[in-house]
C-alpha cells in the first residue's frame, strides 16, 4: 500500500473521530465518588526486616568466625575474620543504598 493511500485513510479516520469529550460535570461527579485513600501499611515491611535481622543474628550467634572477627575488630587487628565482617557490613550498606536510590528514582 502506498504512503499516499495510508495518509488518505488516516486522514479519513481522524476526521471520523470526534476528539476529546467536553467535561460537562463529569470530573466533579467522579471526585465526589472518590473514597478516602488508604495509606500503604508500613508494618509488614518492618516486620520482614526485623525477622530477617533476627534470623541472621540467630544463625551467626554461635559462629566462631563472627566472634573472632568482632573481637579482632575491637582490638584494631585487621585479621581475615575482621576483614570478612567489614566486607559483609560494607556489602549490605551498598545494597541498602542502591535499593534506596532505586526507590527514590521511581518516585
Amino acid at each position, binding site marked *: 500500500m502506498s504512503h499516499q493511500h495510508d495518509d488518505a485513510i488516516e486522514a479519513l479516520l*481522524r476526521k471520523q473521530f470526534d476528539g476529546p469529550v467536553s467535561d460537562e460535570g*463529569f470530573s466533579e461527579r467522579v471526585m465526589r465518588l472518590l473514597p478516602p485513600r488508604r495509606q500503604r501499611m508500613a508494618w509488614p515491611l518492618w516486620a520482614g526486616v526485623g525477622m530477617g535481622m533476627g534470623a541472621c543474628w540467630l544463625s551467626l550467634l554461635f559462629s566462631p568466625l563472627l566472634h573472632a572477627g568482632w573481637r579482632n575488630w575491637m582490638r584494631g587487628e585487621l585479621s581475615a575474620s575482621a576483614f570478612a565482617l567489614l566486607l559483609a557490613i560494607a556489602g549490605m550498606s551498598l545494597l541498602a543504598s542502591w535499593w534506596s536510590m532505586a526507590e527514590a528514582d521511581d*518516585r
Partner: protein
Amino acid sequence: MADNAAEARVDQSLVARVLLGNDRRAFEQLLRRHQGTVRAQLRRLLRGDEAAADDLAQETFLLAWRKLDQFRGEAKFSTWLYRIAYSCFLQVYRKRPWPAGDADMDEVEPSPATSHAVNLQLDFERGMQQLSAAEQTVLLHCVQLGLSHDEAAFVLAMPLGTVKTHATRGKAKLKAWLAAWDETATEEQTP
C-alpha cells in the same frame, strides 16, 4: 514531541503529589486533563453509547485512584489510563457480544456519490463496520488516539507484531472498500 514530554512530566509530578501528599486536588487535575480522551476512547469502543461509556470512564478513574501506587512511570500516564479503560471495557463485554454498529450501515454496497464529502464519509463509516473488532480497535488507538504501535500494544495487551498486522490489514481493507471512490474521481477528471 517536546510538548508530549512536558505533558508527561506534568502528569508525573501530579501523580507524585497524590502519592506523597495524598493530594486530591492533584488527582482532580489529572482527571480533568485526561477525562476527555478516555471518554472518547470508550465512546468509540462502545459505538457511541455515551451513558455506558461514561459509566466505564467513571470506573476507570476510580480504579486509577485506587491503584495509583502501581503506576511506575514506564508508560505515559495517559497510556496507563487507556489500558485501564480498555480492561474495564473488556471485563464488561467479555461475556456479552461486542457492541453492534449502526444496523442501517451493515451490508450496504458503496453507492454513487451525490454530495461527495458526505457520501465519502458515510461510505467510510460503512467500511469501518466491515473490519474485525481487533482491526477497528487497533486503528482507533493507533490513528485516532495517536498512540505509537508500542503504546497500543501496551494498552491492548497485544504483541507488537499483532498490532502492526491489524493496522496494516485494517487500512488495506478500507482502501479496497473505498477503491470505487478512486475510480469515480478518475472518471470525473477525464473529459
